[in-house]
């Protein structure tokens, strides 16, 4: 392992065990975003799209597709930040740290590797979803395009407005460097590449 990455990893390890405060999604669960989510994958499930149909089922009305619960828990509508230059409205200073644990890593680029998600309660339009995240582990493991990619393991709980846990997520995120960043060996060189 390079000395540079070893130093960053040592700092990142001190973050293990940290937990965020509970953060609420900006918007309640709404029908139109559910429709767009379904449209994305040609899903025509009437439980998600047809109020009249859904009202006659055990659910009594439209419900949120289970995997979309995670989306509504986040500040903006969207599973993750698209980057400060894209998110709208622009994030306030320090906002990202309030709902997500992002320990220092060598690279900025990220790929989400996923993990098990448990669903405990149904979520409906009008519900509010919030979440909090705990950092479980950080380690270095090589990938094809970065021999020292950082892997970040987290556990997240999602709650509704009654603070009932509606979903639990174990996730692994991989953060890697660009080819130029891999050539750099000091923080100063990386700073020059990024700016």
């Amino acid at each position, binding site marked *: 392992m390079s000395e540079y990455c070893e130093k960053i990893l040592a700092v990142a390890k001190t973050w293990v065990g940290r937990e965020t405060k509970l953060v609420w999604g900006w918007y309640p669960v709404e029908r139109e*975003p559910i429709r*767009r*989510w*379904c*449209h*994305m*994958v*040609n*899903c025509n*499930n*009437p*439980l998600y799209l047809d109020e009249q*149909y859904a009202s*006659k*089922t*055990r*659910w009594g009305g439209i419900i949120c*597709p*289970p*995997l*979309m619960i*995670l*989306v509504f828990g986040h500040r*903006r*509508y*969207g*599973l*993750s*930040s*698209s*980057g400060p230059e*894209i*998110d709208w409205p622009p994030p306030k200073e320090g906002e990202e740290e309030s709902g997500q644990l992002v320990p220092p890593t060598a690279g900025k*680029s990220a*790929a*989400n*590797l*996923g*993990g*098990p*998600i*448990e*669903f405990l309660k149904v979520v409906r339009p009008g519900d509010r979803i919030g979440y909090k995240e705990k950092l479980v582990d950080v380690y270095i493991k090589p990938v094809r*395009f*970065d021999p020292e990619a950082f892997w970040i393991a987290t556990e997240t709980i999602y709650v509704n407005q009654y603070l009932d846990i509606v979903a639990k997520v174990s996730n692994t995120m991989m953060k*890697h460097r*660009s*080819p130029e960043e891999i050539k750099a060996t000091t923080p100063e060189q990386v700073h020059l590449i990024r700016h």
Partner: protein
Amino acid sequence: MRPQVYFEDVKEGDELPTSYSLHLDELRMHLQTSGTQDYHRQHHDVEFARKQGQPNAFINTGFYHAALSRVVTDWMGDEGWLQIFSMQMRKMNYPQDTMTMKGKITKKYIKDSQGYVECEVWAENQREGVTTPGSAIVILPLRGK
């Protein structure tokens, strides 16, 4: 109402009958950003993705969640409950790939008077075969309950 599958109707080894395909054309890439509201450039801007070391823009997590879970939620019907879902994004899906989502029953059992069915699910494409293996545990209704 839609036909309902019951715990007693399924057996280990059965393929889920709800397999389907999505071609990742330009419209699908737009639907991806609209549906997930994930506008990160790596998921739609080819030049940006290349600068990050990727050969192309690549499909985002929310899209995989929606696409792969649909195989299960379409199959389990109005009375089913998706309890656990998991997937691993091992290989990328790029624009112009055709993703096919499939599933198979691996185990069924009764626990606490409920009918549990475990499934293997996966997304594959024409270039690399299985790109996104996953699994799901579903509670199906029991006949007569």
